[in-house]
C-alpha cells in the first residue's frame, strides 16, 4: 500500500515525468547509436559527438571508422527515427484530444493515406522534379497529405456546416478507404517497382542521411510548436466543442490549426519514412495512463517518449535478424498492437 502510494506520488510529479522521459530518450539514442553490426563503445560515442557536433577540444584519437559510422550512418538514422516517432506521437495525441477519441490517430483522418498516395505516385511514375531532385518524393508526399486533409475538411463542411468531430472522422475514413484502394490499384499495376513500393509502404528509416533530417526538421518544428501552443485549447476541446466555446475557445479557428499542424507532422513523417503505425496510438495512451490527460504535459512528453520509442523500434528492426532489416512498421505493429490490446482489456476490466 505504502509503495503504491509512493509510486503514484512519484508519477504525479510532473518534473520527474520530464526527467524520466528525457532519460529514456537519451538512453534510447545512445543504445541506438551503439548497437549494430559494428558495436561502438558508449565512451566513443560521447567523444565523437562532443568533437564533431560541439567542436570540443578532445585530444583522444578515435578510429575514423567509428567516427564515420556514428556521424554518417547511426546518428542521422537515430535522429530521423526520433523525429518521426516524436511527430507521430504528438500528432496522435493532438488528434485524439481534438476528436475526443482515444482510438483516433493520424491515420484516421486519411492524412497518411494521402501522403502515401503522393509517394506511391512518385515511385510509380518515376517522377523527379527538376531542382529538388531527391526531395521530390517527400515534398510531393507532404503536398498530397495537405491536399487530402483540406479535401476531407471541405467535404466534411459540405455535409455539416458546424463540422462535428463525428463527421470529420467518418469523412476521413471514407477518404482513407478510397485512397487505400487507389494505392492497391497502383501496386497491382506495378511490375518491377513492386518491392520498392511495398518496402516504402511498410516504412523504414534506413539510408536516409542528413538530407532527410533537413527536410523533416522545419515541418517538425512548425507542427510541434503549433500544437504545443494549442495545449490549453485541446484540454477544453476534450470536453466537447460546445463546452470549449463556452469556455472561450475559438473552436473553428483552433480546430483548423490543430488539424493543419497534425497533417504537417504526419505528412512529413510519412514522406520520409513510409507508413509507420501504432506510434501515434500507443504512446499518447501510455502517457495518459502514467501522467494524466493534461495536454500541457501530454504533448511534450509524447515528443520525448515517442522519439525514444521509435529509435528502439528501429534498433530492433535492424538487429533482430541482422543483417536483414525488417520494415520498422512491422516492429511497431508487433509491439504496438498487443500493448494496445492489453490497455484496452485493462480499461474494460476497470470499468466493470
Amino acid at each position, binding site marked *: 500500500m505504502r509503495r503504491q502510494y509512493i509510486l503514484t506520488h512519484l508519477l504525479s510529479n510532473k518534473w520527474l515525468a520530464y526527467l524520466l522521459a528525457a532519460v529514456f530518450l537519451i538512453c534510447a539514442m545512445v543504445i541506438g547509436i551503439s548497437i549494430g553490426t559494428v558495436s561502438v563503445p558508449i565512451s566513443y560515442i560521447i567523444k565523437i559527438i562532443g568533437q564533431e557536433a560541439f567542436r570540443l577540444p578532445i585530444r583522444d584519437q578515435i578510429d575514423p571508422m567509428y567516427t564515420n559510422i556514428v556521424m554518417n550512418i547511426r546518428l542521422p538514422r537515430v535522429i530521423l527515427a526520433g523525429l518521426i516517432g516524436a511527430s507521430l506521437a504528438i500528432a496522435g495525441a493532438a488528434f485524439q484530444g481534438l476528436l*475526443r477519441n482515444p482510438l483516433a490517430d493520424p491515420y484516421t483522418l486519411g492524412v497518411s493515406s494521402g501522403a502515401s498516395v503522393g509517394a506511391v505516385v512518385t515511385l510509380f511514375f518515376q517522377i523527379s522534379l527538376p531542382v529538388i531532385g531527391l526531395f521530390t518524393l517527400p515534398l510531393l508526399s507532404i503536398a498530397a497529405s495537405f491536399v487530402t486533409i483540406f479535401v476531407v475538411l471541405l467535404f466534411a463542411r459540405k455535409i455539416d456546416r458546424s463540422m462535428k468531430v463525428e463527421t470529420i472522422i467518418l469523412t476521413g475514413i471514407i477518404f482513407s478507404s478510397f485512397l487505400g484502394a487507389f494505392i492497391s490499384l497502383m501496386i497491382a499495376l506495378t511490375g518491377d517497382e513492386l518491392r520498392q513500393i511495398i518496402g516504402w509502404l511498410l516504412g523504414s528509416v534506413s539510408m536516409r542521411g542528413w538530407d532527410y533530417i533537413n527536410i523533416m526538421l522545419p515541418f517538425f518544428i512548425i507542427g510541434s510548436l503549433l500544437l504545443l501552443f494549442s495545449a*490549453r485549447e485541446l*484540454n477544453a476541446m*476534450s470536453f*466537447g466543442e460546445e*463546452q470549449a466555446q463556452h*469556455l*472561450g475557445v475559438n473552436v473553428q479557428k483552433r480546430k483548423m490549426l490543430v488539424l493543419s499542424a497534425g497533417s504537417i507532422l504526419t505528412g512529413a513523417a510519412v514522406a520520409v519514412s513510409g507508413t509507420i503505425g501504432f506510434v501515434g496510438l500507443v504512446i499518447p495512451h501510455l502517457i495518459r495512463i502514467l501522467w*494524466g490527460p493534461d495536454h500541457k504535459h501530454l504533448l511534450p512528453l509524447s515528443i520525448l517518449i515517442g522519439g525514444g520509442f521509435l529509435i528502439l523500434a528501429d534498433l530492433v528492426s535492424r538487429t533482430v535478424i541482422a543483417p536483414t532489416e525488417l520494415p520498422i512498421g512491422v516492429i511497431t505493429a508487433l509491439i504496438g498492437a498487443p500493448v494496445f490490446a492489453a490497455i484496452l482489456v485493462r480499461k474494460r476490466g476497470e470499468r466493470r
Partner: protein
Amino acid sequence: MTKLLSIGNVSGGYSGETVLHNIMFEVHKGELFGVLGPNGSGKTTLLKMMSGVMPYGHGKISIKGKEISAYTAKELAKIVAVLPQHSAQTFSYTVKETVSLGRYAHQRSWLQSWNTEDEEMVKKAMAQTGITAFQDHYLDELSGGERQRVFLAQALAQEPEILLLDEPTNHLDLSFQKELLDQLKHWTEERGLTVVSIFHDLNLAGLYCDRLLLLEKGQVNQIGTPIEVLREERITAVYHTSIEKLAHPAVPKPQIVLLPEETAQNRNNIEINEQYLTVNDDHIQLIAPKPLRTLSSGVTGAGFGWHHTFINRHVDQNYDCSDPVQEMKEYLGTHGFTGEETVGMMTAVNLNDASFQLYQEGEISVFIVVTAGTGNAVDATSSQRMSSKLAPGTINTWVFINGHLSEAAFVQAMVTATEAKVKALLDLEIRDPITGTIATGTSTDSLLIAAAQRGETIEYAGTITLLGNLVSKGIYECTTTSLKRYKKRHSL
C-alpha cells in the same frame, strides 16, 4: 432594473428547419429566469443561441447592449458561462484540472502562466460547490451529481455575469436539486448573478424562478411570473396532459401535479354504506375498500388528505392528556391501524347511541354516521370560555359521499353539515348551560367529509344543491336521533 440579455424577434434553427419563431424577451440583472416547454419546443436551441454556439437566422440577441456575434469567444466567455446538460468525458481529468479550464478566457496567452488570481478563483469555485475535498480525484470516479457540481464550479471559475443552465437538476437527487437551486437563488440575490435555466420540472421552476418563459412549438406561449405562467389550462394545453394545480403548503407558489389516466377499475363507483361499519363499546370503525379523499378536523388525519380507515373512539369523560395526537396514534397502533391512513376522533358518549343511515337520490348517495351528546353544549355566539385544550368531542359527524367532489364542494358540504347540525340542536332546544341560550354545538365537535372521488363530478354542495339536500337532511335526522338516544340514556 438593467436589462442584461435581450432577445429581439429571434427566429432560426438547424439547416432547413426553423425551430424558433419570433422569440422576444429580456432578462434583467440578478434575475432567475426559467425556460419551460415540452420536448422539442426549442428550449435547448434557444439556450445554444444565447450562448453563442449556434447562429440564428433573423432577429438580434444582445448582451449588455452589444450583439452576441460582435463578441469574440473569449470576451463572451467572460460574461456568459454555461452548465451543459451533457459533457464529453473521453479522458479522465482531475477535478481541479477541469475547474481550472474555467479560467481559460481570463488568461491572455499561452505564455501567461497561471497566476494567484486564477488559483484563488478556482479554489473559491470549488469551495462554493463543495468539491474541494475531492479536487485530486478523477472525473470518472465521481457520481453524476458530483460531476455536475464540478462543471458548475468550472462555470463559476469563469466569473460570469450570466449563467446559462440546461436542466441543471437532471442527474441530481432530491437534496442536491434543492441545494443547487438554493445556491443559485442565493447568488442571484447576493451578487447579482443572472441565471437563465431550462427546467423540466415545472414545480422546481415555479418555486425558484422570478419569471418563466413557456415555449410551445418554438413560439412564446407566455412570459411572466410563475403564477401567471403555471395556469392549469395553459399547462394542460401546452403539454397535452391532464394536470391539476395546487397551492404550495408553505410558500405562495403554484405546484402542479399529474393526474394518472383513470383505469377502468378506478372508474367503478364505490358506495360507502353500513356493510363497512362496525360498532362496539370501544370504538366505531369504518374501513373503506379504497382510500377516500377527506377533509376533517379529526385528532389524526386532520385537514385535506387521503384515508381509508375512520375511527371514532370512546374515551372516558375525564380523559385528559397533554398530547392527545400522540396518544391517539399510539392507540391506533395498538389496534392495528396506522396513523397516516386513519382519521381518528374521540368522544365521551356511549357509542351505542350512534346513528347512521344511507341517503340516496338518483346517482348520488350519502352515508352519515353521528355520535352526539350535549355534555358541554356551547352557544358559539355568546361563548367566552377560552381553552386551547383538546377535549373529547361530543358531536362527531362523518359524511361519506359517493361522487367526485371539487374542493369547493368539500367546504360547502362542511358548511351545510354544520348548519344542519345547528338546526337539529335548535329544534331539540339544547341550551348552553352557562348562558342559557340555545346551543349551536359542543366545544369539541368534529366533522369529516369523505368522498370516493369516483363517478360523477360534483362541483357544488351548497344547501340548495342535490348533494346539499342529502347532506343536510341526513345530518339533521341522524343528529336528532342520536341526541334523542343520548337524552334518553341520561334521562334528560
